[in-house]
């Protein structure tokens, strides 16, 4: 009976179809959690909204672009200082957020004039910045403000600026995933092919679905440089707006995050015939495999092998030191979606870590197919897990460490379980060879923190074990 109805879900039995326990000997094709489905209200789900999927995850990463959010102030405030994607230009993207600060009169009479004025002001106040993305939000979508028309007018008034519009209100779709899709498709429809990039190498790629979390993009860039491969566009880590307008000129699309950016890779293939190559950038085995695939495509296998050998010589001893000490550690992953299948096998192969439970906020069917194929038996695979389910699953699998966001991290701390920031990393980057050593180091430091064993002690003596049992 691999689909599981948890005790806490007895009043919402439809949750059974979202939780899968992989069992040896059963055909996993018979069981796949429902995913990308509406959230049950009041469950304390972990999901965000589709606006954030567009602005916070993808668009807001760009290092030279004004992010104009057309709506009340909260949508701007809330998607500011909640991500770690630095840039090589002093983190312009992290320092600022822009809002039209919609008020009631604009809801009644329309907010287009307000938007137009705010756009001009933003360009006037920051005269060096010439690029902008405008986002709708729930209320401006509901009242039907035509942000595309406004953007056209502003571009007509200011010939040196370029503006992209993203119409993705928070209520669209069931999670942030919808926002990824809207931005991907909008961008390829309107902006790809409008700038001709300078080609400096025989070998060109787009690196898609990597947002320079903790410096990931910048770390991987060292590999591409060594291989003599030109990255025309990073979608969107450490990227400029205009880099992404030249994506049509790459020979190959290398995709890391297939969930948030697989769409644009597919469209580039359809429209421009650029092949799509999916790789995993986390973990030694995977990263080496990814480099080999890319190099095979270009016929530069020797360069690839030389790079891998060099990186292994440098980092593998350190990884092995941690592997020796992490072997058998039980890990849970509660993140967005793809990191479940990126990580479950890489931590097992490279570090001897057992992933015992995984929950995805916005993964789709293909994400679950992948993670169940790669993951272990005896492991729980959960779609859109909620707080009470997390408590129950923790009781069932007793993880030693949980990769999740900081808020849930604060919650599990009370249960004496350390967390690692699975979204933004503790001390990244985590991609590549060096990055996976960082991940191993952070996991080691978390699991071996002496405070955790101190927390379990009841200084009154004797009572600790009893009360602990009572709590479980």
């Amino acid at each position: 009976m691999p689909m599981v109805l948890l005790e806490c879900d007895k009043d919402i039995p439809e949750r059974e179809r979202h939780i899968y326990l992989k069992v040896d000997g059963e055909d996993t094709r018979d069981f796949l959690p429902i995913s990308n489905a509406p959230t049950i209200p009041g469950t304390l789900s972990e999901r965000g909204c589709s606006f954030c999927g567009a602005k916070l995850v993808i668009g807001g990463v760009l290092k030279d672009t004004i992010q104009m959010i057309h709506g009340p102030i909260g949508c701007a405030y809330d998607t500011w200082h909640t991500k770690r994607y630095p840039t090589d230009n002093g983190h312009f993207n992290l320092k600022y957020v822009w809002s039209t600060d919609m008020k009631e009169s604009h809801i009644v009479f329309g907010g287009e004039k307000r938007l137009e004025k705010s756009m001009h002001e933003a360009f006037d106040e920051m005269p060096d910045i010439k690029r902008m993305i405008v986002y709708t939000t729930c209320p401006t979508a509901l009242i039907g403000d035509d942000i595309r028309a406004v953007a056209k007018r502003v571009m007509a008034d200011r010939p040196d600026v370029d503006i992209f519009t993203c119409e993705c209100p928070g209520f669209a779709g069931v999670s942030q995933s919808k926002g990824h899709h809207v931005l991907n498709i909008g961008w390829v429809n309107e902006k790809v092919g409008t700038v001709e990039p300078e080609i400096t190498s025989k070998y060109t790629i787009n690196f898609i679905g990597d947002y320079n979390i903790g410096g990931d993009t910048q770390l991987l860039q060292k590999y591409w440089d060594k291989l003599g491969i030109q990255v025309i566009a990073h979608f969107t880590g450490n990227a400029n707006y205009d880099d992404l307008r030249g994506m049509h000129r790459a020979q190959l699309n290398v995709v890391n995050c297939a969930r948030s950016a697989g769409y644009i890779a597919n469209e580039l293939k359809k429209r421009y015939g650029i092949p799509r190559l999916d790789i995993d950038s986390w973990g030694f085995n995977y990263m080496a495999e990814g480099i080999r695939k890319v190099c095979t495509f270009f016929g530069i296998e020797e360069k690839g092998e030389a790079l891998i050998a060099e990186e292994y010589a440098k980092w593998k001893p350190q990884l092995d030191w941690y592997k020796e000490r992490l072997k058998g550690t039980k890990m849970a992953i509660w993140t967005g979606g793809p990191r479940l299948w990126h990580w479950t096998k890489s931590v097992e192969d490279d570090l001897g870590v057992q992933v015992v439970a995984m929950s995805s906020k916005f993964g789709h069917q293909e994400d679950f197919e992948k993670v169940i194929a790669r993951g272990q038996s005896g492991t729980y695979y959960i779609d859109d897990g909620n707080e009470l389910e997390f408590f129950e699953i923790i009781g069932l699998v007793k993880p030693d460490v949980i990769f999740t966001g900081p808020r849930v991290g604060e919650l599990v701390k009370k249960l004496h379980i350390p967390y690692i920031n699975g979204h933004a990393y503790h001390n990244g980057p985590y991609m590549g060879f060096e990055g996976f050593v960082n991940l191993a180091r952070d996991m080691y430091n978390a699991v071996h923190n002496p405070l955790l064993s101190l927390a379990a002690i009841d200084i009154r003596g004797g009572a600790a074990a009893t009360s602990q049992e009572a709590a479980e």
Partner: protein
Amino acid sequence: MGCEITTKERAGVINPMYDCQPAGAQFAGIGIKDSIPLVHGGQGCCMFVRLLFAQHFKENFDIASTSLHEDSAVFGGHKRIQEGVMVLAQRYPDLRVIPLITTCSTEVIGDDIEGNIAHCNAALKEAFPGRKIHIVPVHTPSFKNSQVGGYSECMLSVIKTIATHKGAPNGKLNLFPGWVNPGDVMLLKRYMREMDVEATVFMDTEDFDSPMMPDKSIHTHGRTTVEDIAGAANAIGSLALARYEGGTSAQYLQTEFEVPNTQVNTPYGIANTDAMLQAISRITGKPIPESLVRERGIALDALQDLAHMFFAGKRVALFGHPDLVIGLAQFCLEVELKPVLLLLGDDNSKYKKDPRILDLKAKADWDMDVVCNADLWELEKRVKNPDYQIDLILGHSKGRYVAIEHNIPMVRVGFPTFDRAGLYRKPTMGYQGAMDLGESIANTLFAHMEFNKDREWLLNTW
């Protein structure tokens, strides 16, 4: 010379100082014991606010969403409310209060909140006979006011919904501290104990700083109970410490139940704390004890070492919640700091007539700007202007890059302060808060002198 009170001229906002109304409503809602706010809107409206609270308090708070999806935007979100309430009631058996918080989307759609609550109440009565869950309607469209108004609105709705009738006098004082840290709540509760006054704090957020316990139990929740709220109508009086955060609730209790309300200056600094304690003494008839006279003396003694040697004439920019900014400006004057820029971050028209601001204006014999509906770009522009010298910034973490980029010492105060450790635990109010803040300012200035090698030798003999 003098004070000018203006409003930001730009329409748009670059770097906001406040979040929107529903965020403030959620903060008030989690201050109640056995309460889970249910935010009626898109999932981001609750998810990011939970993250914000976690960033500031380093704690998780339970807040639910009706998870408004596209179909609800077209057909209305009634079913999402009803299902959300029922799911919460079923899965959280101790739940007693659900603040039902609207957002911009659901106010634009026009969902009938009161009608849905009536429906939910009937359904709950049938499903859970003998169990009372208070569903509180909180109308907080994001396109009005800000987190400041949302906090006040939720507080008022909670009182209106639960404190419904006058009973026997309970001899207690209603204390409305405003949107403050657990450190302030703990300080105020200590003052009440020292004065032998029984008080109810709206909301008691002491446990927003909660422990890791050997039995792994979780204590992160508000402490103000349903009984406390119902009892607000029977108090001997209300004391409102913040005009814009809870002041309206105290007024309502006076109008509706004849609970006399006293509005005092927010107790930042020595004189404002004096006035608060004297007001408590007046309302309750209890004397101010020796221990507080002594604490006051220690604070004065400590601040005296700093004021005219290090602080005098330093030009300070302040931003944050209105009651905090105004109160801190008054504190600045006590310690000879010069508040030259006060930024208030929403379009509340009452700020310009606030008696405390008018008093500052009357006193100002230096240039002072008060900017209403301000954003942090107003701060950054002035900081960049060489003629507009700023020596110190007092504000929350959203302004951190202004300080970092322009090498200006900044002391974190207010909400949120996610880029400094443990500030939520420390009081800013009262004598102790004034002393702690003064010493933080001094130590920040001292570290700045050292890192910039700016007369750091002064400190050799201090």
